[in-house]
């Protein structure tokens, strides 16, 4: 059953100039499934997550499309209605989890606050629950008595995870949950998130720039670039059968400790300016395969069932896949 459905979502940040950060993205998330949203900085992935959570910054606004959560259109809910959904049904582990705990309150009080805001439970019950949650995320329950500064970054991240699970929500949005952490802690956290999700059966949206994280933790994925969806589908499908030059470029730029060592490619150039309207493919200016038609509107194709690509495919994709593994392909483009 579909838990979340995002249709042609547009998000704009007011300002001078206004920035349209998300430009018509659609995807669905099934119950119990994990969806990865990947892209580089400025691609709109965090905005997308915030829009779903209803946590856009003050100057951000949904300017088009709809978000349907569990059959309910939550695109334009009032604050009050939002609050009922938030945390209760949908929680978030944000990018800056390290700083998401209020420094002047003890951990138990912050967990309790989240619980009591939504449920009518006694202090004692809330306290018990907070200890349970701590154990759940692999922390010593006694540390609920600590202040945030007494915990390490990884521990704080776990506390945030504990909080996000406090009300057993249907959907957890994890926005770059491990960016600031080193690999060992990252692994611990990701593993814990996955385990808990598996146990509790929630759905999850994992926003990250790291395709290896997506590969290891997600069922399906959306690749974003310049506020638009480039490619989406089942993780296996995308990794093994990517069509989009950007997706391929990203995959080839990623180092791995597995297999034989290979040279990495890079994608020269920089992302498009999102304050300007763009007709065609946002990646066209950096794409070595770009053709004049890429300046025009690009439809989403579905080469394989459930696999969506936004690309004209100016050259046959087999060729794209082969050539995108070579650094020269990318470099040559710049030397027009």
């Amino acid at each position, binding site marked *: 059953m579909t838990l979340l459905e995002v249709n042609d979502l547009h998000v704009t940040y007011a300002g001078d100039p206004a920035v349209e950060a998300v430009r018509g993205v659609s995807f669905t998330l099934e119950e119990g499934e994990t969806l990865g949203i990947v892209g580089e900085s400025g691609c709109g992935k965090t905005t997308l997550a915030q829009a779903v959570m209803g946590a856009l910054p003050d100057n951000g606004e949904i300017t088009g499309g709809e978000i349907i959560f569990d059959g309910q259109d939550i695109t334009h809910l009032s604050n009050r209605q939002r609050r009922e959904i938030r945390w209760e049904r949908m929680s978030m582990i944000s990018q800056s989890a390290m700083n998401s705990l209020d420094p002047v309150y003890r951990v138990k009080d912050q967990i309790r606050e989240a619980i009591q805001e939504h449920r009518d439970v006694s202090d004692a019950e809330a306290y018990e629950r907070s200890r349970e949650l701590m154990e759940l995320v692999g922390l010593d329950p006694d540390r609920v008595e600590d202040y945030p500064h007494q915990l390490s970054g990884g521990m704080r991240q776990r506390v945030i995870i504990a909080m996000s699970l406090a009300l057993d929500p249907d959907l957890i949005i994890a926005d770059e949950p491990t960016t600031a952490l*080193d*690999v*060992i802690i*990252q692994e611990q956290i990701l*593993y814990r998130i996955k385990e808990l999700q598996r146990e509790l059966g929630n759905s999850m949206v994992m926003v990250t720039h790291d395709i290896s994280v997506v590969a290891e933790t997600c069922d399906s994925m959306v690749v974003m670039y310049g506020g638009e969806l480039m490619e989406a589908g089942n993780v*296996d499908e995308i990794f093994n059968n990517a069509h989009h030059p950007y997706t391929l470029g*990203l995959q080839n*730029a990623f180092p791995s400790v597995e297999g034989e060592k290979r040279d990495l490619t890079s994608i*020269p150039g920089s992302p498009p300016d999102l304050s300007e309207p763009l007709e065609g493919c946002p990646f066209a200016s950096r794409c070595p395969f770009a053709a004049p038609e890429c300046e025009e509107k690009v439809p989403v194709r579905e080469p394989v069932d459930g696999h969506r690509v936004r690309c004209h495919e100016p050259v046959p994709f087999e060729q794209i896949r082969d050539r995108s593994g070579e650094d020269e392909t990318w470099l040559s483009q710049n030397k027009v």
Partner: protein
Amino acid sequence: MAITEQSLNWDYDGPIMEVAGLEKHFPQSTGIVHQLIGGDTKHVKAVDGVDMAIESGETMGLVGESGCGKSTLGEVLIGLQEPTGGSIKFLGTELSSMSDAQHKEFRRNVQMIFQDPYESLNPRFSVEQWIREPLEVHDIDNQDERIYEALERAELTPPENYIGEHPHELSGGERQRVSIARALVLEPKFIVADEPVSMLDVSVRASILNLLRKLVDELDMGALYISHDLSLIRQMCDRTSVMYLGKVVERGPTERLIKGPKHPYARALLDAVPVPNPEHNISEPQLEGEPPDPVDLPEGCNFRPRCPFAAEECFEEPGLDAYETADGEHAAACWRVETVDEM
């Protein structure tokens, strides 16, 4: 560059940078009253007896969790921090016994590239001023030419387009290239790169890594590349040292180390690196928890409390010679390498 009588020994054919028993301990601040009543000062042992030698033209990787002392080691090597023990030899000359002129020459020949491209350039300097500064400091002639050359080397071409820019007008990748140009304008012989790409977008990482790699080769420099991510180390380094709590626990040729890590910590580190392969699902971490406070270190092997393979013998501190391959290239400070391999 003119060589003066007092200059460093450029004919030295040993490792360009060689450290032995290097220590950097930070006294932990204690209260004045505490000191008055005669309490002993505790030390944070950021670097605690490191031996390492880096040859010209070679890139040494240094990998470890945050807080393991790898950045401190990097800063000590290039003289940003004074070591509290051990020796540092540059071109065979002991750093602490260098004359002023030699020290100045040392300064000119070791450089560093920092992690954060947004903070490693002075926001008030133009690219030209920023790259010119080292030349001014060392009073080197033909400055304009050298600046152009450095920019070209860093692949900021054409240089005219960049010299007038200020940092906020540049992208992250461009800034990192400016940092590289600044480091290179003095034509150094040794360079430390501390996570130079970790804050960059994936699509530009490779270009910076490749550039660094190329420059190390071309200029025949020695380099120390610091990272917590073995997949990046793998792209960059000939040899790699794994650091844990101020000590090097494993050292070896990078490929060999990645294919067959010996120290349990290196194994865990390698295992933790996510792999861009959907078949490879996340597995249970080999390591729980975080490294202990480097003030009160455990007895014996530092890693013992977290080590899944710890045994009785680990109460004795292992040196890097605890395990060594026949060719001496690959070594690990662990008593139980063979046992674990068999398991």
